[in-house]
């Protein structure tokens, strides 16, 4: 097991390197000068030169590549072109908000989505199944920012149950949770839709298996067949799919943070994009992709917990 974990982590390293290389190349090799983009078309040649020097753009491409990489490995992500603040400090401050939000979304999605998926699978082609499927399809079709706006209108503007914006301090857990509620619900509803669709479809597959027929033939109660025999087996593909959906959810968290003005990674990234802060943008894109690589790693490692038949050697 330890050997498998180590090997899987070793495999993730070239992936991360490839992620960095692609983002680096996209931003440098693309037509247009990042320094001109940051300063605007009317900047003087001297100002552009000075900024190019500061961004390290005058060095040969390969030197830039190595220099930035070494910086990243040391945890130095460079400084924002706009505020001059170190980017790793900004990311460290924003990351907890993003992780908190994503975790809450996954939690809501899994806790509600799996039972809902099982329910619609068992009631296949009957009324609850139709309703569940339509709702789930709407849930994966609605843009996160629009869902967020609707929730703000209902629960913050009309009912005044929750605050509209910000995230609250971590030192004040109650206030923090009140701020988390609506953004978490936004992501949660989207995640419930994904998870219940996948669970339903995995469950329908499993319910046709021989061992389910055997269990029924033995005279076991339907509840036991569904919850013990089928669920355990359906869980493996569900976990696999869940991992890929968390990556989608991370994308949706960007828009959720923008709508709710949460000081997370997504808000930082959009801000960097709008201010044409290429150094910050590059670091943030690499951070996002690394998060996804990390989640894929964790998903792979969790198979062993769900399915004891999987051996790692």
């Amino acid at each position, binding site marked *: 097991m330890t050997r498998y974990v180590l090997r899987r982590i070793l495999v993730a390293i070239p*992936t991360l390197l*490839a*992620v960095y290389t*692609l*983002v680096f190349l*996209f*931003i440098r090799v*693309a037509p*247009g000068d990042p320094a001109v*983009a940051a300063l605007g078309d009317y900047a003087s040649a001297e100002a552009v030169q000075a900024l190019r020097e500061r961004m390290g753009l005058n060095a040969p491409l390969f030197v830039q590549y190595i220099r930035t990489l070494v910086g990243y490995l040391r945890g130095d992500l460079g400084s924002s072109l706009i505020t001059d603040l170190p980017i790793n400090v900004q990311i460290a401050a924003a990351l907890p908000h993003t992780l908190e939000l994503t975790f809450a979304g996954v939690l809501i999605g899994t806790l509600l989505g799996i039972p809902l998926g099982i329910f619609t699978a068992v009631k296949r082609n009957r009324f609850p199944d139709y309703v569940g*499927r*339509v709702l789930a*399809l*709407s849930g*994966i*079709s*609605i*843009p*996160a*920012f*629009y869902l967020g*706006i*609707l929730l*703000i*209108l209902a629960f913050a*503007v009309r009912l005044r149950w929750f605050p509209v914006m910000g995230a609250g301090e971590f030192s004040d857990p109650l206030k923090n949770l009140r701020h988390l509620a609506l953004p978490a619900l936004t992501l949660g509803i989207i995640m419930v839709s994904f998870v219940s669709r*996948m669970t339903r*479809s*995995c469950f*329908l*597959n499993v319910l046709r298996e021989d061992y389910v027929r055997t269990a029924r033939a033995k005279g076991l109660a339907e509840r036991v067949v569904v919850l013990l025999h089928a669920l355990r087996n359906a869980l493996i*593909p569900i976990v696999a*799919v869940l991992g890929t959906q968390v*990556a*989608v959810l*991370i*994308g*949706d968290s*960007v*828009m959720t943070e*923008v*709508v709710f003005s949460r000081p997370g990674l997504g808000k930082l*990234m*959009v801000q960097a*994009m*709008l201010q*044409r802060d*290429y150094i910050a*943008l590059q670091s943030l*894109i690499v951070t*996002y*992709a690394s998060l*996804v*690589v990390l989640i*894929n790693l964790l998903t792979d490692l969790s198979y062993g917990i769900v399915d004891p038949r999987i051996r790692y050697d």
Partner: protein
Amino acid sequence: MIKVWHSRRIRAFAQNKTAVLGLVLAAFLVVIALVAPVLAPYDPLVQDVHNMLSPPSKKHFFGTDDLGRDVFSRVLYGARVSIVVGLSAVTVGTVIGLILGVSAGYFGGWFEIGVMRVVDVLMSFPVLVMGLMFMAILGPGMDKLILAIGLVLAPQVARLAHASTVALRDADYVVAAKAAGANPLRILRRHILPNIVGEILVMATLWTATAIRVEANLSFIGLGVSPPTPTWGNMIREGVRWLVVTPWLSIFPGLAILLAVLAFNMVGDGIRDAMDPRLYC
């Protein structure tokens, strides 16, 4: 003509109520996009200072915005951007992805390893993050927006096309064609492409849904087609400032986005069920 649509499949599709409803909805939206100038009661750009932020009424079905522009007319015109960007981006993405995926799958070797490795790495970027990155590189404008969204979709197309091509490359008729001395282009055109085009077309409806959603997201952030051209995303962006007083400025364009994305998702889901009755999982 490639024979993908056997009558059995058409019947299966027609029996799938969700898919048919989705198709009707999608067709409806395309028609609206085409005839927006005829349907719209007002010019979507004309401002009316005496009628700012007025609520929905018989004169203005969806009310007016902070510049007195008719929201209903703007929503109708917004369909043009969504549909044009959605369909063009999918076309661009499919062409790029098909070329890369099919040639990687067919030729194999280092070329295959290189292309598919890049595809795998790009798949670990959340769709929206990739969209932001390409917009940053390409800059503003509708053509860049289409290219950016196309590039976001291309890795998914490439992966699917690659998998299908690999499944075919050792088929007897392909080996026979090779032995007979047919050139690779002919083999790809005659033997490979016709066999994978069906699968790609099904997925293309789902990719259209993604493209429309990404476009809405980007223009909500302020990176898509720029004002005054109305898009559903930038209407919400402008409307959100008035959310408390005049929520209709955000609600109606949002409903339009939801409807458009839902329509293409319904069609894609339905065709997939019809073509492959085995449940995917």
